[in-house]
């Protein structure tokens, strides 16, 4: 349900940068480790953009895969969940280095 808050946040950021111009496309980075449910996101988006500069905008979403570094053995590895273990030594003491992004990269105005 927080997807609506996220969508409102995107609308705020894009509206600030669009300077009054209707928006054609928005490019987003959404990390695979963020708790964004894309179905809920799409539903929220459709409703929330009505009457805003983003009403006709299409979304270009880059999903960023999760990556971590093990704090015990130094191995770098891909992760699907924040609690995955190191593929080298099985430790859970890991540092997430990629995959939690939630960013508006750029936009194109009409």
């Amino acid at each position, binding site marked *: 349900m927080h997807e609506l808050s996220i969508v409102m946040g995107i609308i705020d950021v894009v509206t600030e940068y669009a300077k009054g111009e209707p928006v054609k496309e928005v490019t987003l980075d959404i990390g695979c480790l963020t708790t964004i449910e894309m179905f809920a996101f799409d539903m929220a988006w459709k409703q929330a953009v009505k009457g805003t500069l983003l009403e006709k905008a299409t979304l270009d979403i880059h999903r960023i895969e999760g990556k971590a570094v093990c704090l015990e053995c130094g191995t770098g590895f891909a992760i699907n969940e924040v609690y995955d273990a190191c593929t080298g030594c099985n430790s859970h003491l890991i540092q997430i280095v990629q995959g939690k992004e939630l960013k508006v990269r*750029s936009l194109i105005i009409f």
Partner: protein
Amino acid sequence: MCATCGCDSHTHTHSHSHSHAHPHDEKHIAVEKDVLYENNLLAARNRGFFDAKNILAINLVSSPGSGKTTLLERTLTDLKETLAFSVIEGDQQTTRDADRIHATGTKVVQINTGKGCHLDAHMVMHALQGMHPHENGVLFIENVGNLVCPAMFDLGEKERVVVMSVTEGDDKPLKYPDMFHTSHLCIINKIDLLPYVPFSLDKAIANAKRINPKLEVITLSCTSGEGLDKWYQWLESKKS
């Protein structure tokens, strides 16, 4: 525009010092801005306020019914002479929780989120402006009962405490990993009910530590009082 007070919390200072515009496409605008930028900015502001006033701010999160408000009632009553407390209550509707806190003689303000499912830094900022929490004291922010959404929203707290109870299943941390991953302390409440439920404390703690190896765990019962001393010791250690 903020629906609470009509204020415009947008920052208007931004620079386009690196232009990624392509020569043939002038309408491409670089943004590179975190979606939670506004919330994080206000959270940092709240954090600065807490530091300046020497307030220990604690964000209490859990699913509905795990005992957050009862834990606060016990804590506020037992430690009344030791620490200066203030409370921000978050619920969709009613002032019932704030009323309970008020009955302990503690300064409290209620935020009603309406359809909203979590507190955010903006709401907390407004609550702080209204309430003037005790300096050199402890501020409890009791979040909306929800183990999913509040995990994403920094309120500016120093400590995040996730409360679960023995009636909720020992696999709770695995099912709601983000909340346990972003918390500092896990309280397992209602241990007086252990004889009546198929809940393994060992499994619950192991699951919690698998999600977050640095998570501290305290087991207690607000009803019997068992374990509350450890919670009070933890509070006092964080305050000093």
